[in-house]
């Protein structure tokens, strides 16, 4: 009841959805759409679980006065501010909900990703050493690609040609090989889940 039926649901759901992909019937496609809706609906309720978890962690830190507990008021303020504005003022462009998105969420996210430019440059300076042939290949490729858009005088044209060739030939080959590896790994993992070999997502007894 606690293990067998969920595993049976995974097996039946997995086999059915995999097989129906190859059945070109309208009935099959309707069942497919209905099942995909199931996934979306369960996901909506799972989001509630995540929100509750965030609320509980933040309130817990405030109650226990953990280190930096005062910042959790800001988290809760942001969370409830967005939810209340979204529910009561709507989410159309120009509403306060979208203003919070454009003037709080977007600049912070952009700045956080932009910060990585500093960290990547710092890490590359310390780690990049042309000690072996493979590390030299990696270093040279990275340099050529990074200089692709920068004016280099008479060698700009040549650098752009080389960078373009790198991106469309050897880089393409590497990306395709990696994609195939990811694909095979993904299918193997999915089969393990469907066949009940991989069960860690169900938690412990």
């Amino acid at each position, binding site marked *: 009841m606690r293990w067998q039926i969920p595993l049976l649901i*995974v097996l039946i*759901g*997995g*086999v*059915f*959805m*995999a097989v129906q*992909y190859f059945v070109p019937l309208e009935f099959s496609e309707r069942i497919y759409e209905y*099942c*995909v809706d*199931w*996934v979306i*609906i*369960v996901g*909506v309720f*799972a989001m509630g*679980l*995540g929100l509750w978890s965030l609320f509980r962690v933040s309130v817990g830190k405030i109650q226990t006065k953990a280190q*930096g507990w005062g*910042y*959790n008021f800001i*988290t809760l303020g*942001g*969370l409830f*501010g*967005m*939810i209340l504005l*979204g529910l009561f003022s709507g989410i159309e462009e120009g509403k306060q*909900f979208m203003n919070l998105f454009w003037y709080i*969420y977007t*600049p*912070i996210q952009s*700045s956080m990703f*932009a*910060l990585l*430019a*500093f960290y*990547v440059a710092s890490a590359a300076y310390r780690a990049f050493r042309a000690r072996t042939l*493979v*590390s030299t*290949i*990696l270093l040279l*490729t*990275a340099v*050529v690609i990074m200089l692709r858009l920068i004016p280099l005088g008479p060698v700009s044209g040549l650098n752009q040609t080389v960078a373009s060739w*790198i991106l469309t030939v*050897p880089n393409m*080959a*590497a990306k*395709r*090989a*990696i*994609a*195939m590896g990811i*694909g095979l790994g*993904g*299918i193997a993992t*999915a089969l393990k*889940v*469907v066949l009940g070999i991989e069960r860690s997502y169900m938690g412990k007894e």
Partner: protein
Amino acid sequence: MGTGEILWNGLALFLTLSIFSILYKDNPFYKIAEHLVVGVSAGYFAIILYYNSFIPKVWVPVVHESKFLYILPTILGVLMWTRFSRKWSWVSRYPIAAYMGIGMGVAIPVTMQAYILVPLYATMQPIGFTSMALFNNLLVAAGVLCALVYFFFSKEHTGAFGGVAKVGIWTLMVGFGAGFGLTVMGRVSLLIERFTFMRDYLQKLFGF
């Protein structure tokens, strides 16, 4: 610029500088921005999910269109919340099982198509030495083959097989180098965008 625009952009400027302040050291301004984005992003995605998924997939079909088949996944969704109870948390395995079963079943053929068949089709192009395009096709095909040989660990990488695997490593290194270069350029673009925003805002505010 109107007052509202000045205030909103001023807030965005303050938050941008707060995030960049971590480059000096950890400080309260960074922590404020960090905690704010956690709450705001969670609230944002919850509301987006509510309007784009809950309303059209649950509320409208069940309440307005009387499609009672949708009650079943809704009940499953509600069962997810049994995770809050120690006694009944095992019930949440049912919706998780439905989610995983359907998700994995959909993923198998789609992954096969997108990650294996499409790259294979794209690689199997006419090859030759008579033009640069044909020669490049040959290089791509050879590169993919060599990189795949490198990933094949069931046979020891020695002799001719090891030589092919070595070419595979070189190909992969070019791929990683290009990936690194593109990532850095992407981050630098974001950085330039942030600085451009700050410059434009201050120019408009002070009129210089």
